[in-house]
């Protein structure tokens, strides 16, 4: 006989996958089945008050079981190394809810993202007498988002890409007395209390971080990719070249940090919350500290796009191939410290523009797409995420608000 907890897990799993299998309105939902299980096996059969209590329990369960947090916990129970489902961890499989602006009920779905390096090759590198890191790479990635109700997927874009690139990282070297670092490391190892250990870690940070040189990273490459909506009814193939740029002033002491104007509003917030005040030589406290590591990472791509007959452009009357310029920026900076956690703001912004679009495409407003996600939160506890805009292959703008709670750690 199947235990009650096992039946709950089975019903819950069915609740998660049922809609994919095309459940119709007349078929009892998995949650209805769960309700029957609980009413029959519950303690309150024949006792009105207990039935009411069970009904309240069921309503509570309905809300809890439909949440992505619960589903992700159930999935986690399957992701042990010997379960055969470990690959779900490698593909970053995650249940999620969508609350699009034109849909009343939040929708359930999942996202996935798989990346792997197929080949890499080391190249000798030296710039200004200092060694750097240079190499070639061949990688494959596939990512996307599925909503069980297809009308409720604001991020309706699935991509698969084969990517060949050349990369170089210059700087980011630690100009430090390594013997002194190893002495402090010994103090960390031999610390008898967490406080002593933390003091040693702070001493190592204080010694090594200011010695780090500025780092400049770039990669250039070519890729072949395939884009589709979640039903694969609209598709397109892309051949492109891309350039990625990343800069970090790890020590945070150069003019690059002083003039990181993009971080000024957040530095002001940090000053208000007393995040990283320092006492200067003259005794005054300086709380306005722009971050040298909060420069945005930038990605540029130019692609030749070969659309499928059913893509939005074709439906607007233009099925010709076209060139598309893509831009993406990624930014993260802390704004406050709460107990032992850090509150941060992140922004991911994407812009897509067709070169020399036809009047038909312009009239249908399919020549430019913009999409961004802003998140504020900590590594633990509540976070708030807001997305707005439209991705290529999407037919309408969608605003998505996601309020979540991280339960890890």
């Amino acid at each position, binding site marked *: 006989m199947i235990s009650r907890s096992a039946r709950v897990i089975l019903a819950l799993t069915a609740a998660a996958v049922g809609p994919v299998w095309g459940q119709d309105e007349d078929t009892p939902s998995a949650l209805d089945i769960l309700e029957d299980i609980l009413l029959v096996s519950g303690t309150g059969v024949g006792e009105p008050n207990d039935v009411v209590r069970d009904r309240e329990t069921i309503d509570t369960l309905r809300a809890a079981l439909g949440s992505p947090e619960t589903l992700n916990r159930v999935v986690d129970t399957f992701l042990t190394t010997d379960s055969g489902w470990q690959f779900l*961890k490698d593909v*970053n499989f995650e249940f999620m809810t969508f609350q699009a602006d034109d849909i009343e009920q939040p929708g359930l779905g999942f996202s996935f*993202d798989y*990346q*792997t390096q197929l080949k*890499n090759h080391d190249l000798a590198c030296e710039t200004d007498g200092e060694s750097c*890191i*240079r*190499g070639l*790479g061949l*990688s494959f*990635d596939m990512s996307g988002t599925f909503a069980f109700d297809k009308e409720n997927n604001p991020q309706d874009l699935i991509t698969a*890409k084969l*990517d060949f690139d050349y*990369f170089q*990282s210059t700087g*980011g*070297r*630690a*100009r*430090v007395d390594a013997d002194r*670092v*190893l002495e402090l*490391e010994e103090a*960390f*190892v031999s610390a008898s209390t*967490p406080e002593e*250990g*933390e003091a040693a*870690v702070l001493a*190592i*940070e204080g010694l*090594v*971080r200011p010695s*780090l040189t500025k*780092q400049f*990273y770039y*990669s250039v490459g070519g*890729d072949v990719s395939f884009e589709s909506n979640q039903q694969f009814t609209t598709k397109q193939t892309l051949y492109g070249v891309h350039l*990625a740029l*990343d800069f*970090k002033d790890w020590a945070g002491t150069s003019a690059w940090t002083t003039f990181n104007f993009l971080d000024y509003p957040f530095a002001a917030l940090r000053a208000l919350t007393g995040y990283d005040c320092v006492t200067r030589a003259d005794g005054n406290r300086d709380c306005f500290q722009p971050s040298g*590591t909060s420069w945005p*990472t930038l*990605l540029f*791509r130019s692609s030749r796009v070969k659309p499928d007959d059913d893509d939005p452009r074709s439906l607007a009357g233009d099925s010709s191939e076209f060139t598309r310029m893509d831009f*993406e920026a*990624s930014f*993260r900076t802390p704004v406050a410290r709460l107990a*032992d*956690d850090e509150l941060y703001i*992140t922004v*991911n912004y994407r812009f897509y523009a067709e070169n020399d679009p036809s009047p038909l495409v312009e009239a249908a407003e399919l020549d430019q797409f913009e999409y*961004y*996600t802003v*998140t504020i939160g900590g*590594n633990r506890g509540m976070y708030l*995420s807001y997305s707005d805009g439209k991705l290529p292959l999407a037919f309408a703008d969608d605003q998505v608000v996601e309020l979540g709670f991280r339960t*890890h*750690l």
Partner: protein
Amino acid sequence: MTWSKNNLAHRRTFLTLRILNQTKKQFDAAATQEMSQLAFTVPGDSATMRRDKARSLASTMHNVFVDAFKTDLESGVTKTAAINSMVDVLVVETATVEQLADSADVSYEFLGEEL
């Protein structure tokens, strides 16, 4: 491998992440911290963006291992291979700091490891 200060790869990966401001956790709590919680992660990043950011971070991690902790690569392992091995963990949002450290352990011969 059990998370331990006595494991050179574990403690130096942890210390390097602290030096590079990727985590604020103390050693014991850092073991299960996921890549999605490190400072380089931004929700909504495309796969290409995340891989480039991970490779940039792994390049500096390599430099800190070498410069601050006198670490050598294992025989037959190239710089790019070691970095990409860490990148393969960094891009998995649910991978943990312990898994990252174990990945580094395969590529690097940490000073004192032979003792």
